[in-house]
């Protein structure tokens, strides 16, 4: 693979009836990076990721995946390189059995027979649905259906995976599971991007946070930087708040502590535990 996994240069996008949803976006994501995109609804997060797999084409600017320009390549072709899991699983589930649902993606990409079965089993194992192959998706609760939708994307085994709000509607167990999945995918070398509202999830699980407001990127860096006190006014301008750990750290004069773990280490560094 040549070049960064994802490259957007000067990308602007206008919806047909008016609002400018993206305004001159320059963004580079290296292969294997673990990136969270945050921002208010309407800030352009979903619009941005839809440019990565070709569902939307920029009004101006260019998009390149793994060094090759996206141009007018079909979405179905780009689906070999970019897997996008949507927020609402019920907008994609159409099969009567879990296995068939998960097999849809890889089958479209040309897998058959034993190869297809293997890929489906691997995906189900990652999300914890092994054993539910013959279950009707609507017999699973909402959070497990969401995991099913994720599995159907993972089964496509694309080098780039994008997750739209993976933790919304999940209970604590579901969120832990998603955190583990994200960590495992990254450890396996995939480029992982997630859109999320959950600042704790973002601070704990991602190396890089991109903050959007009104179609532009206003902050881009590691959680330590993005949730540090200097950045709080910018975050506030886009109606986001830093995780509580960061606020506690600032209050105690410990510098940037976006996660509980960082808070604990900062305290330990300052004065050893009694």
């Amino acid at each position, binding site marked *: 693979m040549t070049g960064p996994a994802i490259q957007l240069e000067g990308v602007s996008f206008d919806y047909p009836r008016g609002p400018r949803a993206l305004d001159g976006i320059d963004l580079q994501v290296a292969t294997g990076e673990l990136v969270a995109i945050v921002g208010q609804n309407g800030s352009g997060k979903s619009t941005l990721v839809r440019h990565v*797999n070709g569902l939307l084409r920029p009004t101006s600017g260019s998009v390149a995946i793994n060094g090759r320009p996206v141009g007018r390549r079909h*979405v*179905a072709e780009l689906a*070999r390189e970019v897997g*996008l899991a949507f927020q609402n699983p019920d907008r994609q*589930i*159409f099969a009567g059995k879990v296995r068939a649902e998960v097999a849809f993606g890889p089958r479209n990409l040309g897998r058959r027979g034993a190869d297809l079965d293997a890929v489906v089993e691997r995906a189900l194992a990652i999300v914890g649905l092994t054993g539910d192959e013959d279950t009707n998706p609507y017999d699973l609760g909402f959070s497990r259906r969401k995991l099913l939708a994720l599995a159907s*994307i993972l089964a*496509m085994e694309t080098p780039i995976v994008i997750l739209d709000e993976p933790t919304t509607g999940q209970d604590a167990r579901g969120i832990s599971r998603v955190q583990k999945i994200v960590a495992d995918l990254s450890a396996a070398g995939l480029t992982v991007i997630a859109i999320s509202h959950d600042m704790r999830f973002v601070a704990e699980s991602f190396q890089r946070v991109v903050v959007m407001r009104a179609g532009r990127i206003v902050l881009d860096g590691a959680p330590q930087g993005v949730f540090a006190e200097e950045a709080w006014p910018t975050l506030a301008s886009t109606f986001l708040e830093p995780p509580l750990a960061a606020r506690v750290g600032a209050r105690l004069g410990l510098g940037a502590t976006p996660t509980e773990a960082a808070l604990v280490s900062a305290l330990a560094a300052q004065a050893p535990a009694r």
Partner: protein
Amino acid sequence: MRGWTGPLVVLAMVVATAAVARIGRSMVPFALAVIPLVASILLINTFLFPGATDVIVRIGPLTPTWTGLEAALQATLRVASFALSVAVFALTTPTDDLLADLERRGLGRRGIFVIGAAIGMIPRIAERASEITDSQRARGLDTEGSPVRRVRGVVPLAGPLIIGALSEVEERTMALEARAFSAPGRRTTLRQLPDSTSQRFVRWAAGLGAIVAVAASLAGFLPLP
């Protein structure tokens, strides 16, 4: 002039109304929609009118007749006047006013709701359909390019669309119940539609006039339809 006066009078009224209401341009799609039907009427009647012998010109085995042509044109006028009068109604009556009036006249709240919600749902269903298609395309379903591919895209669209609509029904029902939808008695009407004496007079006069015209025509006094 039997056979011509009816549709011509109606068309004249439609055109006059359209001119006054300035909806001329919006009528174009309705007029275009009528073309396929009109074309088949013209062809079938002109060339295949049973029993006609006054041939216009012989083109090989085809024998268009004057009788056929006259019948074709009459039928075309009838279709056009019917379709365009419906168009005038649709274009000059806001749905909300129509529903409010039906309600005032006693069409129950369920009827109103079904009509209003069905109309309102169309753009939302379209939006949902496009979201579902996007999901499936992102999973490698190729819907761009040939028509065959586009058709194939329908199957993984139908399931989620229908299931999604159905599964929402329960929640929507409860949201309606939570707003006392099933309370007995008449709903309060908010809109007072302007209805002057002259408008009421015209409505009654038009209705009576239609009955009189039909009776007179049947009795042979009027050259209608």
